[in-house]
């Protein structure tokens, strides 16, 4: 089952295209739409948008249920109470820009939802509504954690039916003052470490999908700025979606990675999906 947290906005409508496409490949073909009225958008507009969504689902022969949740203390709590505990389901939500171009994810409802453990979550930043929620080329940057495919698989598998290629990518952090002094041998050994990790991930994917129909490439970069490296690669390879894991282990970690993550969300040349990392 796919669960869509829809805020009733136009942006929510763009995110809903992903949800519909995900639901099409679910065994039960079910889509649960959750909406908490906040009063920011006229109810008549929200109703029209949700009705359009229901019609699209009917057209695609999906079973769709729409729930208007009572606003409790805040939107997040209302949503959390309504999200079923189901590890096989996927919650889809959007990361919207806040007033005065502040952060997309930090302190957003999407960030709180990413912390819930009721089901896997993907928060989407849609920059290309013309893509209609059907990316076929995915960039999957990985930070080198031991969790392997476990965290991103619930999201990645929903894209599989339409995929043409997946680029596994690992950026190894090298300070810019150190980079010119790095010997070729050291550089190569670092790259080898990165490639070995990505090949392990590739083997894991192949285990899960013995007859995969899309291409997977592995690429490693040494850089002092991992977020820039991801953005450049996304443009260079004409990627349509960056699927990024976010971790929330420590404050320092969050401060360090949070800036890069927001940078990607701000400047991405394509849509971005964020899942909960290890």
């Amino acid at each position, binding site marked *: 089952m796919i669960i869509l947290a829809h805020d009733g*906005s*136009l*942006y929510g*409508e763009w995110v809903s295209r992903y949800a519909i496409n995900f639901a099409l490949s679910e065994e039960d073909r079910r889509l649960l739409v959750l909406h908490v009225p906040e009063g920011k958008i006229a109810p008549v507009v929200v109703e029209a948008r949700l009705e359009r969504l229901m019609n699209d689902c009917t057209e695609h022969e999906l079973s769709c249920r729409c729930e208007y949740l009572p606003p409790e203390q805040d939107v997040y709590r209302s949503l959390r109470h309504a999200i079923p505990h189901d590890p096989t389901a996927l919650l889809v939500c959007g990361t*919207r*820009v806040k007033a005065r171009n502040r952060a997309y994810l930090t302190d957003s409802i999407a960030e709180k939802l990413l912390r819930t453990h009721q089901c896997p979550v993907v928060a989407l930043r849609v*920059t*290309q*509504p*013309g*893509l*209609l929620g*059907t990316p*076929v080329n995915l960039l999957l940057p990985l930070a080198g954690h031991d969790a392997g495919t476990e965290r991103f698989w619930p999201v990645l598998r929903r894209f599989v039916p339409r995929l043409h290629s997946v680029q596994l990518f690992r950026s190894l952090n090298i300070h*810019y*003052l150190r*980079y*010119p*002094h790095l*010997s*070729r041998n050291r550089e*190569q050994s670092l790259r080898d470490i990165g490639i070995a990790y990505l090949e392990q991930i590739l083997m894991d994917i192949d285990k899960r999908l013995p007859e995969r129909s899309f*291409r*997977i*490439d*592995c*690429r490693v970069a040494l850089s002092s700025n991992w977020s*820039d490296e991801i*953005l*450049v690669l996304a*443009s*260079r390879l*004409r990627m*349509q979606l960056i699927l990024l894991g976010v971790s929330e282990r420590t404050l320092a970690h969050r401060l360090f990675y949070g800036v890069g993550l927001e940078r990607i969300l*701000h*400047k991405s*040349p*394509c849509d971005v999906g964020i899942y909960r990392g290890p």
Partner: protein
Amino acid sequence: MNNCAGIQKLSVDQVYRALDSSPRGLSSSEAQERLREIGRNSIEIPDRWRLLRSLLRQLTNFFTLLLLISALICLVAERLQPGQNMLILGWALGGVALLNAVFSFIQEYRAEKAMEALRHFLPQQTSVSRDGKVVPVPVDELVPGDLLHLAEGDRVPADARLVEASGVMVNNAPLTGESLPLALSAEAVEDREAEGNSVFAGCLVLRGSGQAVVFATGLRTEFGKIAHLSQAIRKEPSPLERQTAHMVRVLTLIAVGLGISFFSYGMVSGRSWWINLVFMMGIIVANVPEGLLPTFTLALALGSLRMARQNVLVTSLNAVESLGSVQIICADKTGTLTRNELTVSLLSGPTSVERLGAGERRRLLTLALAASPAQTAEQEKKGDPLDLAIASAFDREGYGISWRTLFFHPFDVEKKRSAGVIEENGEKLVAVKGAWENIAPLLSEETNSGVIAAAESRMRELAGQGLRVIAVAWRPLEADEDGSDQDSLERKLIPAGFIGIEDELHEEVPAAIRDCREAGIEVLMITGDHPDTARTIAVHCGILPEGVKSETDILTGDILEELSEEELKQRLKAGVKIFARTSPTQKMKIVLALKALNRVVAMTGDGVNDAPALKAADIGIAMGKSGTDVARASAQLILLDDNFASIVAGIREGRTIFLNIRKFTNYVLVSNGPEIIPYLLYILLPVPLALTVIQILSIDLGTDIIPSMALGREPPEPDVMQHPPRGHEFQLLTPGLVIHSYLFLGLLEALWSLGLFFYVLHSGGWIYGTELAGDHPLYRSATGIALATILLMQIGNLIGRRFHRRSGIDRSLFANPLLIVGILIQVLFSWALLYSAPVQKILGTGPVEWTVYLVAWLGIPLIFGADYLRKRICYGPPLSLNHFRT
């Protein structure tokens, strides 16, 4: 090309629905909401701190930091104990540090130019429907869902799907590199690769008008991605930068290590902290070749001037040397290897190998011309070179136009053919010309498989001769067929024959490729041509050997598209030499795979879409004549004559510059020996200091600079192109070079200069163990002769450094006038510091007997002779220069 293929499959109504738009366009409030969500339609990455960050990066460079810290210590020392000339030293060190940083900063600032050139491809304002009215809006306020109104001559401001089109023809050259017009409609297309109903940012509407719904803006457009890469790709450190960094690191470690060790020793042995500080500074200053990096820059700048004379314009100084280390050149066939001047060299029937009769020749050229946009060479001048070649052949044969054109369907990139309907002698016919593989399926059923097979074989035979083969077919039209519908026209065609078109090689290319092979440089050819044509050209110019045909040496674009980087690397290792039927966008893939193989790659390009690949390569080479501004701004080298041979001339120059850099590095490091040893003696023995810090700087930042530059201007050695490229592993500072500089020639200079220093002290009455004041006349004379000896011995060192294996006087000194200037400076300065009062005052030196000064001159033959002896012992008798000339 299109990243939003899904939208092309939708009907017009579905497009409006998918993008929440309507034939009335968006409302102003909706547009505002979308602008907030998606951001501005701008291809620039706003980064207000970029320049400041770049400047800071230069200032925090390892070498610059070292110089700045040294300068700061000098300034503090001057404040604590004035009158020791530490202020001048401080400013000198600070000046060198800033000079280096500013040079590098100016290089990075150039990146702005590429963006400026890209900006010209987007309009300032455009017309859209908002709230049901057509209004002009600034282009950066466009959002997905906006309904654009396009007219002839407009630049497209964003990627958009046509919902209404009336004869729309666009030029997508900025994205595809293909300058031929493309006809578009508003119909849905099923083929994922097709682009028949979309317009793209940066492209030009050549004809017609239409309305289109925006589906991507800013950096998400195809043009935006090129712009993003043009701004965001940072050049990796060049081989020289890496080698310089390594050298600076090693020298700094030696300098700081020695400095701190002996400072500690001095403190333990009870000397005052001030003496120890001056001593430590002296050790550091003596070890760090302050003048070396500015001399690098000057040598590269002079090299770039010499390259300009070879028709290679350098836009980044490091590229001068990087070109010398190139291991692989990826060259475009058209324009770089060939002249890009097409001529019809053969007319053939569809199956026969016999020469066509006059009537048949006329018929074939008439049909080909009917399927061309204009019918005279004069009209074609600005059009496609292929059509120009056909029109020129028609004119050359003396034929006149005897028909009337009724319809023309221009060349379609997807269909790879063009068609024209003409009326001649009251009869209507359609003529189609294009690639054989696109014409063959349109032949009539009556054309039996035997004929098709024979035509296929003939086409392959012609392509095998290196000709670009154009197939021509036709059929008579019924009176009621009007010719407006291309698809219904192009059926049941009759093959008319083939036109073989040749693009001649630049005459210097085969020799240049031979030079590359001898120099161990691999040349890969990239072309959009048929593999057989590409192979023949490659054989003609020497990229492939004659008579050896292997399947592994050619890779076509469609296969390349499907390969992963790892698979491509394997193919490259297996020996791919030609990329045929490739598009410019695939160049990036080739560059990245080659770089992943640890090769130093040069890539040529001319189009806007070549810019990212040019930036990603170690050396991006743009075409000066045919290249776009964007390509030129993204490249590090510009070929003024678009000729491959100029690249090879540039490589020769680049290799020479690197060899010269090694020569003057060796030259400069030699003087480090006699600069360090006096400090070691001073701390270990009760003797006066033979050289002061300011005297060391007078060598490093004064007298050594012009001789170093002279070595930087030495002409190429005859065998410079007979060695394999250096590659990434090669180091500028090798153990051999360090031993030769410090422990051989440096030691020799130290012994001779210190010998004279102690001779002057001894003959002046100095007794071992006694101290001498810094301003004592005897001390000033002794330190003066030590400095003068070093300067004079540097002349012998300078001449010996001209050749690695030969003596250095087997080529006239006057062949390099700067060398004479350098020698004169050393001589003049060695005299002035002993006998000219103003110089004595600045350097703290004094006069010596003339005889002593003449003994110092003996140091020149001593160092030169010793070095020559070493060369003879190590390398045997040298080959004469004439050996290489023959």
